[in-house]
């Protein structure tokens, strides 16, 4: 488990160094994810240890958003001033994005011919 965590942190660190070094607008962890993805393609897949650790971490992904979400208490003033545009905007925009993306992707998957093995 320690080995797998070390590996994840090393890739995150690599991502941060690249992001800072080249002044990229993309955060380090996302670059780290892309690098690890490339490494997994090159290596042919994760070790069982890495797979288990990732699974454990991702199983409770929701937990990791709780501290930032609690930051809502810093914005009570603005939220109470602008609650209507914010609420309607978030609700409609999120539902619209889900519906439009899903319908378009389903349509594109039918329209674009696929290779034989998927038929």
């Amino acid at each position: 488990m320690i080995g797998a965590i070390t590996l994840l942190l090393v890739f995150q660190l690599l991502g941060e160094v690249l992001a800072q070094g080249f002044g990229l607008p993309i955060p380090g962890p996302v670059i780290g994810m892309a690098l690890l993805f490339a490494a997994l393609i090159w290596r042919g897949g994760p070790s069982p240890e890495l797979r288990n650790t990732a699974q454990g971490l991702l199983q409770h992904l929701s937990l990791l958003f709780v501290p930032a979400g609690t930051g809502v208490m810093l914005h009570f003033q603005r939220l109470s001033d602008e609650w209507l545009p914010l609420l309607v905007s978030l609700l409609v925009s999120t539902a619209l994005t889900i519906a439009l993306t899903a319908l378009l992707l389903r349509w594109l998957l039918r329209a674009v011919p696929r290779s034989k093995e998927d038929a």
Partner: protein
Amino acid sequence: MTPRLGEIWVYLAASPLLGLTMTLLAYQGACYLNRRCGGHPLANPVLLAVAALVALLWFTATPYQTYFDGAQFVHFLLGPATVALAIPLHAQLGRLKRMALPLFGALLVGSLTAALSAVAIGGLLGASQATQLSLAPKSVTTPIAMGIAESIGGLPSLTAVLVIATGILGAMAARFIYRALKIEDDAVRGFALGIASHGIGTARAFQDSEQAGAFAALAMGLNGLMTALLLPVVMPWVIG
């Protein structure tokens, strides 16, 4: 002993132990409630845990910064967890290659819809410009969204809250939208939820299936990149 309770609280509030333990307890309690509701999307664990913590901090007059000094250890794990998303992604490699073109089309349209519709609706209903700019990256995972908000002139800490609200709303609404539109493919369901609702949508998609989760993770990562590239170019043009 009771008169000393206040002093004990003051002592504990000064160490990271309390914020960290509170976060884990609130989350465990929220997960328990979610299970009692049969995993219903409206009983979202992030929403329940945040509500409990805000109530507790409010009631005890504890500043957010004091709480976050402890909770930052949980917050920090967002980084390695983002990196770890490469693993479920790799498991879908075969399907990803075959679906590359449709996925790219859906990504482009989904990414623009998420940002522009939020800004347009906010603007129509009279949101201030700072609020509109903070809304633009709402569908992107927290660390990227905060970076984008800063670069286009929004308020990063407000964006963090809007991002999490978006994640919760999407995770709550997706099942009903998919039922109404008869979307049944787990890959499509996961991808659309990942575009609209980043990590919280991804966490929700993993509850449905490994495949839905992997496509949500892919969508989240790609939408982060796409939005980070598009918004700094598009926004000055839209807000004008």
